[in-house]
């Protein structure tokens, strides 16, 4: 069990209930400003380099254009009745106590301006209906608070009208970009992915060297030639995975897990250096054009390599874009094998292999871990898996239970469709927002602490690159080790015994008579 120093002096304080409503702290987060994009970051994406002179006029016109083009956006702005159901549903509100982090308040930042310019009452009686002029102060407030939304969509689950704050937050960022007020983190990354092919800026030569290095590790471990092919024309499967899987911990262990599964399945597969990124940051800034540019790279790679299938690795926002929008953005994919889901998630691939009994696991290899699973927001809400409702909740858990002996779910109100965000999604995984990220993670960490106390849980598994990085950074602030976060396919890889693999003779731990502990 992890040694917990949960109430260390100066550290975040746990409360008993992960969803406890905090005391209000008005204005607590109003000065938190994410780094503004440099002119080049903006112009690379086709936005003005700096705030333009007539920004107010352009921004107001853009609100009208979005409301006209996107009916959902207009309905979201028009239909809120201030029922209050969403107020305590945002992890950033729960963690900061700042009332402007209540979803309804976040929506109202934009709604109040929309009312002023696009509704009868707002035009003539602004004060009566809470309509505001778009001033520089309002724009700055937008910038700060729309970069305190991770677009996780938890609030939308509880809204009786289904208002999606994520859509409003994306629209707000789109409007800000259109007048030259972009965020450095997102815009710099999108520009890199659009030119080099991935968010890291990993060029083909470096990618090849990294993958060859990892192949050596796999051979040392298994005694077999388990490959991670790059740019291999004619492969059946193109793997699109977040570039963090080529770089960071524990992401890389997930990649090694995919490689073992593909090896055991006997499927020919490849990574593409041209489309070496799954995460589509175009979504974070609400930019259809940028989202499309990035998606088209995937299509291009699939065509150039002549693959039959596209499989996505562990990446939350990638899966949202891939599952929900890929066909619209870059389809039709009529050149792929129509007998498989287009696109397919690696979890579906592995789950399918397990169902067929084709993977041989030694679950005791994961006995050092007592696990829970964090549903990543954009997989849980707004996408699916396995071709049936709720499959995105079941498949990862079934895969985990197939390769681990000790699995325990967290509080039901904090998982599945009600999952809490890790605190770093939606373009907020940047160092200057660390205070917000830590506070936003506290509800999730409290839920984890509960299963640590109740079931001795030591580790959490996830299937999103952002979640993994975020948790490895914030877990130490909550008394856990940084490596208490694991990739699901890392656990798959640990337990998977490949055909022909020489097994080291471990002194076998006593397991006879010990009941397998699995809850659901």
């Amino acid at each position, binding site marked *: 069990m992890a040694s917990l120093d949960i109430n260390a002096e100066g550290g975040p304080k746990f409360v008993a209930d992960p969803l406890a409503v905090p005391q209000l702290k008005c204005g607590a987060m109003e000065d938190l400003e994410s*780094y503004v994009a440099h002119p080049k970051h903006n112009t690379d994406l086709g936005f003005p380099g700096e705030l333009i002179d007539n920004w107010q006029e352009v921004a107001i016109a853009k609100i009208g254009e979005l409301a006209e083009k996107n009916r959902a956006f207009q309905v979201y702005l028009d239909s809120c009745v201030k029922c209050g159901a969403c107020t305590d549903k945002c992890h950033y509100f729960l963690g900061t106590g700042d009332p402007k982090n209540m979803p309804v308040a976040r929506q109202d930042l934009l709604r109040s301006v929309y009312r002023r310019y696009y509704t009868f009452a707002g035009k003539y009686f602004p004060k009566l209906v809470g309509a505001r002029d778009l001033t520089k102060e309002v724009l700055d407030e937008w910038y700060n608070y729309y970069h305190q939304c991770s677009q996780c969509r938890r609030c939308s689950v509880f809204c009786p009208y289904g208002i999606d704050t994520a859509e409003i937050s994306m629209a707000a960022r789109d409007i800000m970009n259109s007048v030259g007020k972009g965020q*450095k*983190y997102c815009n*710099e*990354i999108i520009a*890199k992915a659009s030119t080099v092919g*991935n*968010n*890291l*800026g*990993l*060029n083909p*030569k*470096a990618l090849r*060297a*990294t993958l060859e*290095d*990892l192949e050596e*590790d796999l051979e040392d471990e298994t005694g077999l030639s388990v490959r991670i092919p790059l740019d291999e024309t004619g492969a059946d499967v193109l793997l699109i995975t*977040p*570039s*963090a899987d*080529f*770089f*960071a*911990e524990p*992401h*890389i262990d997930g990649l090694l897990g995919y490689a073992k599964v593909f090896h055991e399945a006997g499927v020919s597969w490849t990574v593409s250096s041209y489309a070496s*990124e799954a*995460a589509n940051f175009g979504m974070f800034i609400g930019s259809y054009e940028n989202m499309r540019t990035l998606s088209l790279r995937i299509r291009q790679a699939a065509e150039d390599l002549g693959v039959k299938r596209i499989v996505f690795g562990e*990446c939350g926002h990638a899966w949202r874009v891939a599952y929900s929008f890929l066909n619209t953005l870059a389809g039709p994919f009529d050149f792929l094998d129509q007998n498989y889901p287009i696109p397919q998630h690696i979890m579906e691939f592995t789950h399918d292999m397990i169902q067929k009994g084709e993977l041989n696991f030694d679950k005791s290899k994961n006995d050092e871990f007592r696990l829970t699973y964090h549903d990543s927001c954009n997989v849980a809400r707004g996408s699916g898996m396995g071709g049936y409702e709720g499959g995105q909740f079941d498949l990862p858990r079934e895969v985990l239970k197939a390769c681990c002996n000790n699995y325990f779910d967290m509080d039901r109100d904090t998982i599945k469709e009600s999952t809490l965000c890790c605190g770093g999604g939606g373009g907020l*995984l940047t*160092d*200057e927002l660390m205070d917000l990220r830590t506070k936003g993670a506290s509800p999730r960490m409290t839920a984890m602490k509960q299963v640590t106390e109740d079931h001795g849980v030591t580790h959490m598994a996830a299937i999103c*690159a*952002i979640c*993994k*990085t975020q948790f490895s950074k914030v877990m130490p602030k909550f008394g856990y080790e*940084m*490596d208490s976060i694991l990739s699901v396919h890392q656990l798959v890889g640990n337990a998977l015994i490949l055909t022909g693999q020489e097994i080291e003779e471990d002194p076998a731990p006593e397991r006879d008579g010990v009941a397998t502990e699995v809850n659901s």
Partner: protein
Amino acid sequence: MAYDVNGTTVEHDEEGYITNLSEWSRELADIIAAAEEVEMGEEHWAVVNFLRDYYEEYQIAPAVRVLIKSIKKSMGPEVGNNKYMYELFPYGPAKQACKIAGLPKPTGCV
């Protein structure tokens, strides 16, 4: 935003990464390290030197695992492990060591 190296100014960004990579020097590394509250010892320099060599060949920083593997070969497993890397560079061998080595910040979901 600039570091002062014996009277010469070296520009850096909001986060302390130098903007013109060719302006790096060992003196500058010591100054950045001091700003990061990292005291440069032999092991720190082994990491920084590896990062710079790797960058020269590949124009990007190596994966943490690749870095650790190399340090393990050159300095042994007591130094070449993830935990120790974080003792050397508390804000991470990737980001903090890159900053001191005068390399760009790794971006993305990392």
